[in-house]
């Protein structure tokens, strides 16, 4: 019977349950335990049979807590690799809060990948939201606390929409299976929206660039791997071939480029460039052919690795200099040569240089858009490829490690960080040199020849001419200037006008009440104060609790029932 029980055990739960022990383990044993958890989960995953496993009945709902198939497996593999790299990168961090948050976050994301029904998906979906915010809050700055609050509000909203959609879907069809949905039905549209928030669709993207740059040094690395790629997986599972995704992904690949080029905080540049890379994957899902879906999965794998590597190198710089702002940095290759080299490998990968990972995955999606004759999308993706080289491939390493010398000579990154970066860099090059290994693991095994003369020459043309433009603009002093400043994005709407209106209403209410008799006015004002305190723009209740607490109660209730059904 033990075998049966084990064969139905979700790999994500290994890390979530393992995380509970972390605070109680002293010193070295804690590190070994944390490193062992993703390895254990990986070994367990390799041993699982494919199919619908982990079935249990909750209320009158039949849950499938473990669905193993090729689409899930590839995301599962890369999530566990990313967890391991994240833990290695994090080894020097003292305490246990970030460590526990990392494991629960990664475990929830992995659990969500293997969720076969919407209720299980919802539980893990909320798990990622609630655990990941601690990676932002742990930075401890007032900006991080505020950004974390905004982040968790958005994330939990996504979960609430998913929950509502699950209920509607169940009511209409009697099924909670997590399969493909029709975006023209109400439930399908809501699920689409819930996934779209986490995938950072245009206009819903602002939480990504708002929160990630405020996270801790290690937190940003871990955040960059999971939430958005989970959403990509969910879209690929639920909405493959949904045509509206093609224009959405096309816009998504293009518009962050402009913001990335203006931005001074290089961790925010990376958040924008991550957003642009997600656009490629969304296009792949929208096209919906075997080739394009394989391209999405491959690009997700490569993107976890190179984006993680870039965030790691910026994290190392941030840790050693206290800033990741382009205006303050420059010339660091002299004292941080290894970090600089790893950053360049990440940059070459995101730019899709031949022999680096981005080249073998991005070309699948671009080829799919070419084969499907999506002209505008294809043109925009070519532009976005050149753009990726401008903002992340050239601009980031150049202004941090080369360029104008800042005079700073910080020490090289700690050994554990270098190790994590080294493994990620090795995988970036490994996939680029031997793409067959990755291709064999894709949802539908593709026979694709990435290294044809045509692909290599055209890609080199794109990159070299983008470099020419960069160099010419640089020499003429015409690049967007690096100065200590921020750029407005759509989150301005709720951080300024909406906040003003809410504040104005509060004052108007107080004035109105003061017109009443003194006694009622006083009572009324007290009420207004209480309301404002609890529900006003700065009130914690208004910010996160009404949706947050309900989601938490729901999650707790469901977990309790699940626990009951186990025994």
């Amino acid at each position, binding site marked *: 019977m033990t075998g049966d029980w084990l064969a139905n055990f979700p790999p994500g739960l290994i890390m979530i349950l393992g995380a509970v022990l972390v605070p109680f383990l002293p010193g070295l044993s804690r590190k070994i335990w944390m490193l062992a958890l993703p390895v254990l989960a990986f070994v367990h995953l390799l041993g699982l049979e494919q199919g619908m496993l982990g079935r249990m009945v909750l209320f009158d709902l039949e849950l499938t807590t473990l669905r193993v198939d090729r689409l899930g497996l590839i995301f599962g593999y890369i999530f566990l690799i990313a967890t391991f790299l994240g833990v290695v990168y994090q080894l020097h961090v003292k305490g246990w809060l970030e460590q526990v948050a990392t494991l629960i976050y990664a475990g929830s994301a992995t659990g969500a990948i293997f969720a076969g029904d919407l209720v299980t998906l919802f539980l893990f979906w909320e798990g990622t939201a609630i655990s990941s915010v601690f990676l932002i809050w742990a930075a401890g700055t007032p900006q991080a606390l505020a950004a974390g609050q905004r982040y968790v509000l958005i994330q939990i909203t996504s979960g609430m929409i998913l929950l509502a959609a699950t209920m509607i879907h169940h009511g209409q069809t009697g099924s909670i299976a997590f399969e493909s949905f029709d975006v023209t039905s109400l439930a399908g549209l809501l699920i689409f929206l819930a996934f779209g928030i986490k995938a950072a669709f245009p206009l819903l993207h602002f939480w990504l660039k708002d929160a990630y740059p405020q996270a801790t040094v290690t937190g940003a690395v871990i955040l960059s791997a999971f939430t958005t790629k989970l959403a990509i997986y969910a879209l690929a599972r639920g909405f493959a071939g949904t045509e509206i995704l093609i224009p959405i992904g096309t816009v998504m690949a293009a518009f962050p480029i402009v913001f990335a080029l203006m931005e001074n905080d290089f961790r925010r540049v990376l958040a924008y460039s991550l957003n642009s890379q997600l656009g490629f994957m969304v296009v792949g899902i929208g096209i919906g052919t075997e080739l394009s879906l394989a391209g999405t999965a491959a690009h997700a794998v490569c993107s976890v690795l190179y984006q993680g590597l870039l965030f790691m190198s910026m994290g190392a710089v941030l840790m050693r200099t206290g800033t990741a702002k382009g205006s303050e940095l420059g010339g660091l290759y002299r004292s941080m040569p290894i970090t600089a080299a790893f950053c360049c490998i990440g940059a070459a990968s995101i730019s899709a240089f031949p022999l680096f990972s981005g080249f073998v995955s991005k070309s699948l999606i671009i080829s799919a858009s070419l084969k499907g004759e999506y002209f505008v999308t294809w043109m925009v993706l070519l532009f976005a490829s050149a753009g990726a080289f*401008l903002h992340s491939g050239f601009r980031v390493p150049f202004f941090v490690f080369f360029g104008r010398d800042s005079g700073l000579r910080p020490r090289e990154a700690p050994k554990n960080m270098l190790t994590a970066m080294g493994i990620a860099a090795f995988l970036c090059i490994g996939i680029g040199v031997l793409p067959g290994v990755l291709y064999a693991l894709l949802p539908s095994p593709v026979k694709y020849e990435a290294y044809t003369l045509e692909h290599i020459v055209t890609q080199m043309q794109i990159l070299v001419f983008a470099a020419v*433009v960069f160099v010419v603009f640089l020499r003429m002093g015409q690049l967007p200037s690096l100065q200590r400043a921020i750029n407005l994005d759509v989150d301005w709407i709720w951080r300024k006008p909406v906040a003003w209106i809410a504040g104005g209403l509060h004052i108007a209410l107080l004035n109105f009440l003061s017109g009443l008799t003194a006694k009622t006015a006083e009572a009324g004002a007290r009420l207004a104060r209480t309301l404002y305190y609890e529900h006003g723009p700065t009130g914690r209740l208004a910010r996160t609790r009404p949706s947050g607490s309900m989601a938490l109660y729901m999650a707790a209730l469901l977990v309790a029932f699940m626990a009951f059904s186990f025994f």
Partner: protein
Amino acid sequence: MANDRPPFQPDQTPDPAEIPRKAADEPPGWTDNKTTVKLLNYALFAFAILLLLIDPLVHKHGPFEIEHVWGFYGLYPLAACVAVLVVARVLGAVLRRAEDYYDR
């Protein structure tokens, strides 16, 4: 019990005074050599021209006619990158705010 320490420690920003700085007698790095940088630039431009010259030798298989125009894969990114950098400058002038804009 390993719990005598606080659960976490916010990232410590290094004291600016403690970050090592350039020493007065530091030998110049390779990027300080103007000739090297110039050579690199010329190599890049030469490579770009070479890629344009060999372009007709590479057969392209795509369905769109524009792809078969000589040098499309070089000249289109060239134009697009110039355009996006100009847009970024213009938009930057409109959207740029002080760093404490949201904290005020």
